[in-house]
């Protein structure tokens, strides 16, 4: 443990990582979803986690959220080793997660969902304060939620995503995990979420963001970590070329993305192709 954090000190300069994973593996039966994955997140840093479908990104996030337990490997958070045995432990440590499937209770209204598990005044719910705080959070995200007293079932996909993000900001977390945070959002809301990620970084929190949208990733990430088939497959600066990133993600120079790109080039300039 000590040797590892010593190494990190050298690599990360003055900064100590908020979160550091070493050799995380996860097996589901015969399938190895993750194999010996290492990952560091420093305070005030946005790490983008990219990879193809089935690369293990969401599994990694679920391990950090306490939903799954790793088969092997160690997790250090805030300087010491931790065991994230269930979601309550992860939340208690200050790890907030926006899941890809959002994990909202459709039968409850927006306020109840935002405060779920963290209600104010447990024996006599303080509905007025909770509703006020909910509106404040949603307005910060420039959300277009018609009413916070309607069940979540009546909201659109994008509105639900905003509710899920608002929920992760409710308690002051130390680390925020965003699994595809902008997938269902409109143009303005996407920009708000990216702004938000930057604001969170400025406050000195760590952010892990999963996204398939390279434009979003480049816009906010300080570091891009590529996973491929459950293993680390390279780390890039945000100004890395698309070619390099795609190669790392797909694992080959010659891949469907490059083939498509060259075909399009050929179509746009038929004289050259001939």
């Amino acid at each position, binding site marked *: 443990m000590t040797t590892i954090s010593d190494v990190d000190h050298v690599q990360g300069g003055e900064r100590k990582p908020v979160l550091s994973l070493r050799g995380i593996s996860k097996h589901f039966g015969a399938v190895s979803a993750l194999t010996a994955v290492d990952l560091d997140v420093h305070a005030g840093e946005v790490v983008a986690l990219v990879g193809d479908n089935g690369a293990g990104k969401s599994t990694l996030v679920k391990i950090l959220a306490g939903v799954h337990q790793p088969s092997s490997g160690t997790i250090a958070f805030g300087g010491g080793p931790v065991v994230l045995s269930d979601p309550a432990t992860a939340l208690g440590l200050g790890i907030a997660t926006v899941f890809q499937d959002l994990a909202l209770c459709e039968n409850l209204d927006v306020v109840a969902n935002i405060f779920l598990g963290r209600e104010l005044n447990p024996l006599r719910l303080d509905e*007025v304060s909770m509703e006020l705080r909910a509106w404040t959070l949603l307005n910060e995200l420039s959300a277009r939620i018609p009413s916070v007293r309607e069940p979540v079932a009546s909201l659109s996909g994008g509105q639900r995503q905003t509710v899920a993000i608002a929920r992760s900001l409710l308690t002051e977390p130390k680390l925020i995990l965003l699994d595809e945070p902008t997938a269902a959002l409109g143009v303005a809301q996407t920009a708000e979420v990216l702004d938000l990620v930057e604001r969170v970084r400025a406050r000195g929190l760590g952010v892990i963001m999963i996204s398939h949208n390279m434009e979003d990733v480049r816009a906010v990430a300080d570091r891009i970590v590529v996973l491929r088939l459950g293993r680390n497959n390279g780390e890039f600066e945000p100004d890395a070329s698309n070619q390099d990133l795609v190669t790392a993600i797909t694992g080959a120079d010659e891949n469907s993305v490059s083939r498509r790109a060259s075909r399009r080039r050929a179509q746009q300039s038929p004289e050259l192709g001939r």
Partner: protein
Amino acid sequence: MTDDTQQISTARLLDRSDERVRHADTLGNTISAFVDRVRSGDLGSLPVVVGLIVICTAFESLNPVFLAPNNLVNLLFDCSTVGVISLGIVCILMVGEIDLSVGSVSGFASALVGVLWVGQDWPVAVAIVTALVLGGAIGALYAFLFNRLGMPSFVSTLAGLLGWLGLQLYLLGSSGSINLPYGSPLVNFGQMLVMPPIVSYVLAAVASLVMFVTGYRTAARRRQAGLSASSLGRMVLKALLVTVLLEFVVYYLNLGRGVPWMFGLFVGLCVVMNYALTRTKWGRSMSAVGGNREAARRAGINVRRVYLSAFVLCSTLAAAGGILAAARLASSSQQAGTGDVNLNAIAAAVIGGTSLFGGRGSAYSALLGVIVIQSIASGLTLLDLSSSLRYMITGAVLAIAVIVDSLARRSRLSHGRA
């Protein structure tokens, strides 16, 4: 004048800034919002009201004794026993599980009280507490089987249905029934004790007053916080309507023997349960687990503990209902808790508007539903129909209630109301 200030401030209220949402500000809007809600499958207590009107007209035309004050008083005595069991069913349905053994647990509890109190000469209070604690232990056992061994509650409680019935028969032995002493406080409570008229009037007034005061204070806080709130006039109107309705019911019952204390206990339990389900963190967790178990777990809720509380509450209330039934009949018999008790308790909760699919329900659905079920039972008894016919009719009513619930749920899904 108050209306004018309301109009002006509406534009700036935090929760009224979205122009796409219609709000029920006027009486006409309120009515049309209600119609919309019903059409989209959010039926609330409408089926109960319609059902009660149909039942009352039908039975009253067949036998004018049906609506006589004393028949209604008897009906309320009968309601309370199944009603308390049904309140437990509401709890377990909220988390999307089921307890099919409530009838057997209630029979077991009534047998236990008979054996301990009359057979073993224990003090009656100790016998009652023992029965309640053992009822809770049965619920804890179901929760253990469910949480740790993954046994579906449907199967474990079906096994319990048979098991606790066997235990009840074993306890009662060859004699088959134990008579509880007439004139004892417990039997008096179950058969005779009614509120003095003045107490019943005052309680009815206090209920509507409390409703008004809490509503007024919430509205004041909301207005102070810049949120929309219902107007004073509407609250006064609502409070007046409730007062008049409650006082009329009490007046009518006082024309007969009066309001049974046992019914008062049942209503009190409903009020407490309603508060717990709607105004506490525990109640929120119950709805959340019933609506989306995995989401609740990821929000940091201890899902196993929520299931434990639901199973334990359900079995404890079933035991309580059994003890009340024993008091009502002045005996602990082999028949207690058998027959239609189980299904009546479940049917009452569903008819009252608690969903079989979890996450939706209210403590008052037990109260409303059991009144419907008991009215049917009472009406059929007055018509001197055999129990064969009663079973068939009650079965049909239960089927209709579940059909309404399923259709309403499908409609809610398609209208985005969960």
